[in-house]
């Protein structure tokens, strides 16, 4: 198997080199046949990448521990399904996975590239081939996953226990695929620029590939957050860890891009800007690869740490120089077709939104690099972590949410005061009323209350637009559901965007709730004892062992009661005096108003070989709040030590995911498939939303 893999990699290396050189020379000397063969060579690299990946996966399936990578990342005890996870569980394998993803999407995008891009295709192929060449080279010579061991061990080391939850089947592949996917729009646009194809032929292919990549990357990050929340057992979901940040940064820039590309599509503006955004996103994705593979910062995500830092740093530098040299060279040809007419127009608001996204990106980059900078400048190491990023990025992110309410309501070109009034009165009223109600309810924390008001403002703005469009169609005879459906269908990119905006609002709701209102208490319970926090009583009723040869593991069964604080007045005031948010009860007798609402089963496992603990939190999730029980440890005396928190609105974080995916797909769905409405109805409907 190892031989096959090595051969496939070497063949891929040769093919991608041939493809790059062939495409360039063929284009230069005008030999079409050579370009065609370069294109076919690019398809063939995909085959070699698939063969190499297949060889590695097969080695895992057959427990071929003569291969070092297999011995390091699997064992015979492992559930066979995790072969797929083990494939990308370490440095070499994840590089091979990235190459696989890159070569497959390269082939697909080149295959389906529109005919009118024919002139720039040789350059696009060359760029894709060169990037593949880099990965083939690294895999073949520097970090081969097919390295053999001198003595074959009887048993492998096993898979990293943190990678065994089901989310790991999709989170890493989506994230890595999304990061490398930025290459595709970059290659198409750069190819067009080299070829001197300055028109807007590349808009659609860049937009579609960018949205796919952006959606994949976004989904990957959400899954990662979900995994952290349910598995990692630290009670959070986003830590502003360097590795998270380097995935977030290209995503932010791509978000800016998929907005401003619409301006180019509709209004022929922002060409230069869009090219610059793609360049930045591509270089940031390379930065992500570099930081991931042995960069200069510490991270919790040390799965792929390696000594490849220098190589990836070099590759990032080359990308940076190439992208911006090309940009500067072609800049004079990238002028806008027409001028900005007003500060109060959709294109102006998109530009401001773009700069806000870039600001968050810039600030995040600064935060990631500041420790390095501090080390170099004065030899003092500092840490830059969540408290910093929350503080500096929070306000800007809120600003972006505000723009999300304003931008879509503004028409292209310019706005009259009258239309401003018509469109913004209701959102502002609802926003203010929301703030008023929250204050009246005695809710604390002004910043959060203001943020909730902003969310209500944006939600109303979207609702208003849907309402008016749907009502207009309803008047022309459709029933409500059909009217809304036709409204959405009439302009999918826009209404898909609204669905994504709604998912972002949900996400924001969860982020604000958990960041500002989380309550936490610690305690340890023996069987029969209970812990009380807020209006919950958690009783530890049973425990059972689930140890296996590689781990010591235990489940706890806990029943959750909803309590009436009046029953517990004494204990509550005692706990308050102690400064505690919760308290424990020794006896298991229930108070009159205790009501059984749920049973949760937190789990704690310790993996001996890895010297690593993994937990599964017990979560009771409702729309309003999550009760979140982390089993910190099962102690020798039979007690379990717990960290219990109440995470308000956390449910919304995970509901946002499906909306995000659906919205992205609606925006992507080819517009050509839109059903044609009868002309009679169209005349009436036309002056409404679609126009």
């Amino acid at each position, binding site marked *: 198997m190892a031989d096959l893999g090595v051969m496939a990699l070497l063949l891929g290396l040769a093919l991608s080199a041939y493809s790059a050189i062939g495409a360039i020379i063929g284009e230069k000397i005008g030999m079409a046949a050579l370009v065609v063969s370069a294109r076919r060579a690019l398809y063939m690299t995909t085959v070699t990448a698939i063969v190499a990946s297949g060889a590695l996966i097969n080695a895992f399936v057959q427990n071929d521990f003569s291969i070092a990578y297999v011995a390091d990342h699997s064992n015979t005890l492992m559930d066979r399904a995790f072969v797929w996870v083990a494939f990308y569980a370490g440095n070499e394998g994840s590089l091979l996975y990235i190459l696989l993803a890159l070569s497959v999407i390269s082939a697909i995008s080149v295959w389906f590239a529109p005919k009118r891009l024919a002139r720039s295709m040789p350059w696009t192929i060359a760029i894709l081939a060169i990037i593949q060449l880099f990965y083939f080279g690294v895999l073949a010579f520097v970090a081969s996953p097919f390295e053999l061991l001198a003595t074959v061990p009887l048993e492998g080391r096993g898979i990293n226990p943190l990678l065994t939850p089901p989310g790991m089947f999709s989170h890493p592949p989506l994230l890595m695929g999304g990061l490398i996917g930025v290459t595709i729009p970059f290659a198409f646009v750069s190819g067009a620029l080299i070829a001197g194809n300055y028109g807007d032929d590349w808009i659609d292919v860049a937009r579609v590939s960018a949205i796919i990549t952006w959606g994949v990357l976004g989904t990957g990050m959400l899954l990662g957050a979900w995994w952290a929340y349910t598995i990692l057992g630290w009670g959070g979901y986003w830590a502003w860890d360097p590795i998270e940040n380097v995935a977030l940064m290209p995503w932010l820039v791509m978000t800016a891009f998929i907005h401003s590309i619409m301006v180019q599509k509709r209004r022929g503006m922002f060409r230069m800007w869009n090219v610059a955004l793609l360049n930045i996103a591509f270089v940031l994705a390379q930065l992500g690869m570099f930081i991931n593979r042995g960069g200069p910062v510490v991270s919790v995500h040390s799965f792929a740490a390696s000594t490849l830092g220098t190589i990836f740093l070099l590759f990032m530098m080359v990308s940076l120089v190439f992208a911006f040299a090309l940009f500067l060279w072609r800049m004079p040809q990238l002028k806008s077709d027409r001028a900005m*007419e007003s500060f109060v127009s959709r294109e102006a608001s998109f530009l401001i939104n*773009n700069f806000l996204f870039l600001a968050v990106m*810039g600030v995040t980059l600064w935060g990631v690099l500041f420790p390095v900078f501090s080390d170099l400048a004065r030899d003092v190491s500092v840490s830059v972590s969540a408290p910093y990023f929350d503080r500096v990025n929070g306000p800007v992110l809120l600003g972006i949410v505000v723009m999300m309410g304003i931008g879509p309501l*503004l028409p292209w070109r310019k706005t009259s005061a009258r239309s401003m009034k*018509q469109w913004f009165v209701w959102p502002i009223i609802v926003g203010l009323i929301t703030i008023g109600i929250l*204050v009246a309810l*005695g809710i604390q924390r002004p910043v959060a209350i203001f943020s909730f008001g902003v969310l209500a403002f944006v939600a109303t703005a979207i609702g208003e637009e849907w309402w008016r469009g749907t009502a207009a169609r309803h008047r022309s005879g459709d029933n409500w559901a059909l009217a809304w459906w036709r409204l959405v269908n009439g302009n999918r990119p826009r209404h898909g965007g609204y669905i994504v905006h709604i998912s972002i609002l949900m996400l924001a709701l969860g982020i604000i709730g958990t960041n500002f209102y989380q309550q936490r208490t610690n305690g340890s319970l023996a069987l029969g004892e209970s812990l009380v926090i807020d209006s919950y009583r958690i009783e530890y009723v049973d425990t059972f062992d689930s140890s296996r040869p590689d781990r010591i593991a235990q489940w706890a069964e806990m029943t959750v009661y909803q309590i009436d604080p009046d029953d517990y007045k004494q204990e509550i005031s005692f706990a308050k005096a102690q400064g505690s*948010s919760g308290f424990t009860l020794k006896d298991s007798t229930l108070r009159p108003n205790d009501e059984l609402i749920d049973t949760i089963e937190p789990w704690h496992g310790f993996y001996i070989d890895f010297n690593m603990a993994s937990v599964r939190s017990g979560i009771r999730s409702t729309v309003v709040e999550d009760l979140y029980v982390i089993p910190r440890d099962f102690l020798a005396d039979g007690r379990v030590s717990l960290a219990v928190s109440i995470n308000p609105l956390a449910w919304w974080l995970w509901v946002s995911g499906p909306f995000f995916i659906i919205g992205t797909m609606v925006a992507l769905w080819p517009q050509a498939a839109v059903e044609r409405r009868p002309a009679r109805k169209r005349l009436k409907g036309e002056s409404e939303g679609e126009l």
Partner: protein
Amino acid sequence: MASRLSFVAVEQRALPASPVTAIFAALLLSLLFALSGCIKESDITLEQRAHQLAGELMCPVCNGQTIDGSSAQIAVDMRLKVRDLLDEGSTNAEVRDYFVLRYGQDILAAPERSGFSLLAWIVPVIIVLGGIGIALLSIKSMRKSGLEAQPVGGISAVANQKQNDLSDYLAQVDRHLSVGSGIKSDEPNESGDAPASEKAKS
């Protein structure tokens, strides 16, 4: 030209003083008043503060985790120490100082706001303000240059010309429609959009 409506023009046509604006103003004022009442955070327990502080201290032996999130023994001990210090009546700043003294600056999850580390806090402000400034400036310059500059490129110039013609036509349509049915003319639609306007024609 009527279509060269600018921001200034919008300002001049600001909302007239109507009952609606008065109600708005009153609502806003009462809200500000109410908000000022809930700024002080009354019942934060010591445990809550300890939890918060734990999120601001790095775990010395884990990669990039705070002691709040780590289950390493040292993190457990440090959490207990934080709580002890708070029980003794220490302020948050004193707790932080206690750990900085023993573990060095990098025990703090966010850099201090003094000396060299102040840079970490100032640069983001510059980035954000600079970004917004550049955005506004470039909108301004795009408006100016566009008034004189001719469209670039052969085909797109034609398309552009066509679109401009259509947009004048559309403006006219809008005016007619707004006479008939109130809101329609000012809807946030893509009125400068050639394909849609062609549909409207048909």
